[in-house]
């Protein structure tokens, strides 16, 4: 194994923090997973979508007569019918005219937008019939460039909204103008984060079945979405208790994007209308163009004010985000970074101009990190530029600015307290593991051979806990402050333990998380603890695994419920053994009197009394043994101030990447020689799980940095619509990675754990850019946009091409 674990300040845990096989693995390696596309319901029908070929068009007519006559075809649904029968989904920001329905109505606003749905007895037959639906369009002007979309002359994506800007707010935290003017130096730059996404290998799939007899809509979906059942019910004009989402469906990866509302509303409507189960499994073409799962697409304009010793005092950042033609969670992805707007640095005042603009492109959805990864890339790019400007070592420059360990909890200008951290130590650990002196020497040797080589660094925040206070921050009409999660733990008559959680998982091994936590608290073998996913009618409330929240929230809820079980057992034992609770010792589920161990109750005996011997219970005690725990996110419950200051996420993990990379001076292909990631997410409940997600996050980040882009033509056509053009890194493109762990426990959580699902992705693009720019620096070249493909690097060096030729010709 290539990770090293050092816990500082750790309590001696029995199960937490130990190597343990994830309980989920067994079913997957045996091919017994339970994914949405595996669901077969009797009489099930299948959906194929018809998409707009145009970026912007009026839909004049839909003629489905020929299609309806084709074999196996049961229905062809148009937007007109759907709009009359379901409610629109609204943006998270205050833009009531930017409504979205699963199918286009009178207008298509992006190429790939779903215009009609064909329902047939097989997917193949539905696709056949789709070719016979005749749709007439009137092509309208479109806009694909976000800066053009801001111009008064630009065609409006949603004319009723009156502008292409769906959100704009200028935040000022501190005396930025004054401090900027007082700084010795100022440096301005622009960086661009290209539209990429997590692109899970499983596309979105949903099956719905309506029961007339029960008045319930059953939903099996590949879903990762807070308040999903409620929003489906609302759109379908059903009461909340008429929708049953089966959270025990295995989700084949999501990392943010599988919000699935439009798919599910469409399929549920059809299921109810047709009185038969209906399933949609996006094919890859539908997924890439019309699945609405593309990520942030940002232009950052940043000015940093700093002193000759490298201290960065203030920052002005404008972030322009192209959200595409409709709003999902997208404008809010400009909001979450408010909670870590200064990264790990002591920047004193900040102006943040957040603007979300609409264009005629596929809508943007929540992507791993919810906007933090692009923001970290922008901040880290600036730190490197400051270092270069001052001719200062980039390590020293960062250290000059890192928040010191004795400054926690640290209040950043935008109102969030970082709970704990020791950034310099993690950075040092990464540098030590990377053997930085030797790495520099290796880089220099490569350079002597005529190869472009560079070392990259990033030191980045990883906010966690999912307190989605960016919702009220970006929409004052939304005063939601509850971000809860829950767990129910039950001990049955045989003494075995079951825990219930109320959301789906997409690879985070939550069953393992919960059983480990409950085992720790109850001091019982985790292998015997079964964790189930209740459906939405049976479940306690959850806000689903977003914002790296589950270790904190679900872990906390499981611990809370288990503690209540333990407390109840102690109360029973005290009553039964006629002592005070303080005189008792709880060990392995059994309880004995400290001063006289022979006076004891075994686990089995305790359980027996709880379940069968009412006459032995203390008066007023509930029989049986089950406890629930529902709780609010730590530090949550607040609303933003007038200046937009708010405590965003509660806990703050941290990552520091060190990379040695080279660029072939002829082909401009990048090779990564060494990759080290220092990582601190407090106490790790399941280290294998955390490391796995960090490796995966780094791979995502390398893809975003080097090869992934949803490129569009000027016509608004998606050019990267298949896996031949949208390039996901394979085992050849992801290097071997060494993770070095550190632990600064959070004071806010039960075990000191912080969240970590977004690790790696948040810091690796920044570090990769840092390495590439270091490699290009001897040529005086640089690159300020992603992805850094071979062609992009060649272009960056083009003006230096003559100097290059002399070096590359003899290099084999």
């Amino acid at each position: 194994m290539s990770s090293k674990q050092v816990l500082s300040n750790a309590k001696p845990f029995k199960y937490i923090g130990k190597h343990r096989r994830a309980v989920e693995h067994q079913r997957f390696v045996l091919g017994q997973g339970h994914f949405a596309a595996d669901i077969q319901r009797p009489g099930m029908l299948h959906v194929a979508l018809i998409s707009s070929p145009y970026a912007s068009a009026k839909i004049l007519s839909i003629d489905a007569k020929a299609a309806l006559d084709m074999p196996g075809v049961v229905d062809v649904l148009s937007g007109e019918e759907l709009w009359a029968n379901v409610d629109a989904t609204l943006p998270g920001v205050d833009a009531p005219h930017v409504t979205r329905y699963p199918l286009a109505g009178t207008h298509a606003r992006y190429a790939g937008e779903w215009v009609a749905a064909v329902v047939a007895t097989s997917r193949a037959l539905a696709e056949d019939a789709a070719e016979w639906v005749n749709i007439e369009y009137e092509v309208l002007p479109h806009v694909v460039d976000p800066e053009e979309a801001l111009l008064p002359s630009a065609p409006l994506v949603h004319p009723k909204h009156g502008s292409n800007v769906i959100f704009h707010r200028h935040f000022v935290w501190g005396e930025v103008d004054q401090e900027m003017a007082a700084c010795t130096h100022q440096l301005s730059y622009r960086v661009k984060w290209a539209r990429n996404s997590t692109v899970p290998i499983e596309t979105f799939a949903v099956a719905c079945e309506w029961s007339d007899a029960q008045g319930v809509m059953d939903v099996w979906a590949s879903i990762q979405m807070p308040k999903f059942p409620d929003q489906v019910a609302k759109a379908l004009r059903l009461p909340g208790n008429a929708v049953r989402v089966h959270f025990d469906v295995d989700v084949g990866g999501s990392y943010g994007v599988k919000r699935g509302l439009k798919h599910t509303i469409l399929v549920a409507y059809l299921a109810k209308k047709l009185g038969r189960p209906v399933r949609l499994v996006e094919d890859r073409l539908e997924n890439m163009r019309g699945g609405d799962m593309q990520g942030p697409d940002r232009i950052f304009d940043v000015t940093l004010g700093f002193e000759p010793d490298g201290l960065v005092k203030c920052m002005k950042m404008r972030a322009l985000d192209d959200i595409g033609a409709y709003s999902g969670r997208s404008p809010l992805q400009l909001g979450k970074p408010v909670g870590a707007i200064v990264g790990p640095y002591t920047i004193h005042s900040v102006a943040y101009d957040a603007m979300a603009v609409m264009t005629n492109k596929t809508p943007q959805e929540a992507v791993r990190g919810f906007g933090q990864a692009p923001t970290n890339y922008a901040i880290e790019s600036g730190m490197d530029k400051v270092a270069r400007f001052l001719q200062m070592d980039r390590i020293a420059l960062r250290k000059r600015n890192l928040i010191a360990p004795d400054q926690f909890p640290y209040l950043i200008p935008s109102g969030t307290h970082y709970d704990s951290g020791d950034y310099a130590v993690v950075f040092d650990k990464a540098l030590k593991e990377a053997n930085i002196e030797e790495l520099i020497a290796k880089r220099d040797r490569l350079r002597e051979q005529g190869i472009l080589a560079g070392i990259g660094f990033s030191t980045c925040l990883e906010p966690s806990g999912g307190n989605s206070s960016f919702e009220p921050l970006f929409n004052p009409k939304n005063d939601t402050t509850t971000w809860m999660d829950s767990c129910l733990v039950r001990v049955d008559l045989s003494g075995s333990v079951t825990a219930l959680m109320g959301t789906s998982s997409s690879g985070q091994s939550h069953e393992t998380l919960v059983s480990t936590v409950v085992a720790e608290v109850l001091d019982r073998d985790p292998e015997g603890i079964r964790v189930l996913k209740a459906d939405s009618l049976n479940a306690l409330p959850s806000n689903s695994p977003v914002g790296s929240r589950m270790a904190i929230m679900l872990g906390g809820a499981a611990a809370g419920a288990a503690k209540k079980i333990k407390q109840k057992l102690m109360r029973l034992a005290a009553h039964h053994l006629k002592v005070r609770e303080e005189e008792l010792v709880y060990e392995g589920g059994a309880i004995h009197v400290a001063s006289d161990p022979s006076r004891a109750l075994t686990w089995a005996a305790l359980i027996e009394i709880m379940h069968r011997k009412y006459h032995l219970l203390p008066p007023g005690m509930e029989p049986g043994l089950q406890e629930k725990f529902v709780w609010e996110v730590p530090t949550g419950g607040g609303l933003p101030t007038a200046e937009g200051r708010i405590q965003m996420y509660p806990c703050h993990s941290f990552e520091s990447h060190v990379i040695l990379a080279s660029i072939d001076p002829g082909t401009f292909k990048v090779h990564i020689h060494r990759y080290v990631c220092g990582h601190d997410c407090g106490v790790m409940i399941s280290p294998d799980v955390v490391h796995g997600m960090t490796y995966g996050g780094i791979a995502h980040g390398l893809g975003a940095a080097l090869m992934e882009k949803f490129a569009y033509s000027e016509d608004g056509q998606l050019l990267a619509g298949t896996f031949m053009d949208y390039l996901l890194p394979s085992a050849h493109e992801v290097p071997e990675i060494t993770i070095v762990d550190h632990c600064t426990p959070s004071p806010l959580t039960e075990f000191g754990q912080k969240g970590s699902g977004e690790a790696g992705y948040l810091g690796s693009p920044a570090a990769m850019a840092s390495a590439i720019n270091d490699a290009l620096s001897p040529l005086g070249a640089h690159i300020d946009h992603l992805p850094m493909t071979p062609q992009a690097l060649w272009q960056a060096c083009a003006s230096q091409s003559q100097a290059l030729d002399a070096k590359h010709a003899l290099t084999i």
Partner: protein
Amino acid sequence: MKAAPFDYALAHDLDHALTFLDQYGMDAKLIAGGQSLVPMMAMRLARPEWLIDINRINALKRIELTSTHLTTGACVRQRDVEYNEPVTRALPLIKKALHWVGHQQTRNRGTVGGSLVYADPSAELPLTALLLDATLHLESHQEGARSLLASEFFMGPMFTAVSDTECLTHIDWPIWSGPRVASAFEETAIRKGDFAMASAAAQLQLDANGRVLRATFGVGGMDGTPRVFPQLAQQMVGLTATEIDLKAIAQEAVQECEPGNDMHCSSDYRRHLARVLLERVIDQTLQRALAQ
């Protein structure tokens, strides 16, 4: 992405396959490994009414090695060439080319003939065929058997001289015998296994004094078909390695091409890439030959 409906026939011999082609012509497509065709059909970019499966015709699967030629039936699987030691010893260039073709799983099904007939401008086997001056044998009922040189076979992007009623039956790959024969194949794609942005290959032979006896080199992905440069290669004959101006040769070769633009690769970058790769493969080939 389900293919449009079609009828399927398994041809039990070549004659059977050709009869189908006579009957259905343009409405039929031959399928061997299907690694290119099936995805195209899934995307409904190809929608033959008849699929004629030639993958079980033994006559199309032979591999024969003589001192002058390697003959591969059209339906020989790429992996069967890749793992055939006598073949790859006699013709190392073909193994070097296959190293870059897709992934192991695709080479387990994909055929030599399939790749040649599909004729993607950046594909490795077409470049190799052109480089070696391979002869491709076609057969139909109407025209009987005919042979084409690779240079006559590849006509444009995804476009060959195979007519609607013809089947590619086998390919003769010339072998260069004698000492000091070396070869190299390089390509650049963003990920290994992807379609190349540009590729280059070279084969040459040196005499005992290190002078070039014969040479051939070419590029892929730089035009509608792969390109070879026989006149430029001829200019290398009689020269030693140090007398060869790699830069100039590569520059001239690339200037003859008209590379296209796509989202990964502008024509300017492609030109640059091809120059670099061509210099490298010729250099590598010279070094390898000298080392022998």
